[in-house]
């Protein structure tokens, strides 16, 4: 494989690590989720473009569309949290703490 796929994998790993570690905002984790999706889209597009396998152009497109829906759902949850607590800090999500 070529070097650019390695960089896309590293970008995916960086965004995944960023999504798993919260700091203060929940919005930052949603942005890292979008970054994961973007790196997967670019990787799938490049593999399809380099191999000239025409039918798998639908894969990055459907991935993009599903990611848009998932972003909408994440933002709906964020808006709900923000309406309840006034901001989207993750320290507000402490109902299950004893």
């Amino acid at each position: 494989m070529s070097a650019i796929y390695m960089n896309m994998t590293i970008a995916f790993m960086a965004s995944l690590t960023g999504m798993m570690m919260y700091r203060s905002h929940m919005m930052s984790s949603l942005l890292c989720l979008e970054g994961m999706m973007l790196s997967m889209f670019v990787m799938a597009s490049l593999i399809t473009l380099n191999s000239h396998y025409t039918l798998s152009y639908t894969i990055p497109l459907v991935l993009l569309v599903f990611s848009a829906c998932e972003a909408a759902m994440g933002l709906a949850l964020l808006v709900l949290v923000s309406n309840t607590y006034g901001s989207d800090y993750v320290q507000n999500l402490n109902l299950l703490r004893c």
Partner: protein
Amino acid sequence: MTLNVYYFLSILFVIGCVGFSVKPSPIYGGLSLIVSGALGCVIILGYGGSFLGLMVFLVFLGGMMVVFGYTTAMSMEQYPESWVSNVAVWSVMLFSLFMEGLLSYVWLNYDYIEVIVQFNNMGEWVIYDGEGGVGYLSEGPTGVGAIYSYNYWLMFVAGWSLFAGILITMQIIRGN
């Protein structure tokens, strides 16, 4: 040392992805994601995928990032935290840049890395356009249009699940 310009752009892509993964304030994270998205689009355009690059700009940046932008404006704080205002943020950013630079140095000198998968060349700058396939048509829109002919079941399932997803989102946002 063979230099492929798309490898350099993908290094910038990784730097952009690290830029929002260290989690500054979301407005700066959104800016970094826009930069990464633009760079990803340029990489895809360079390999001949004009339709897919347009999809990145229209759907990803123009659709999703706009929504993220004004949702971030809703949850804004008075002093947003940038990349240099917190020790944790800029130290992790510097460390990630150093690691990426080290990886690029190893690449450009040895041209071979094997972690689990073997990465063994820089890639081609000019892509060989094979005979056959779709001929004079552009491959991108032809392949995407195949979602209506060869992949119609995918179209049906995706459409139905997105419809269900929209109803779920509306029920979530209704609250109470």
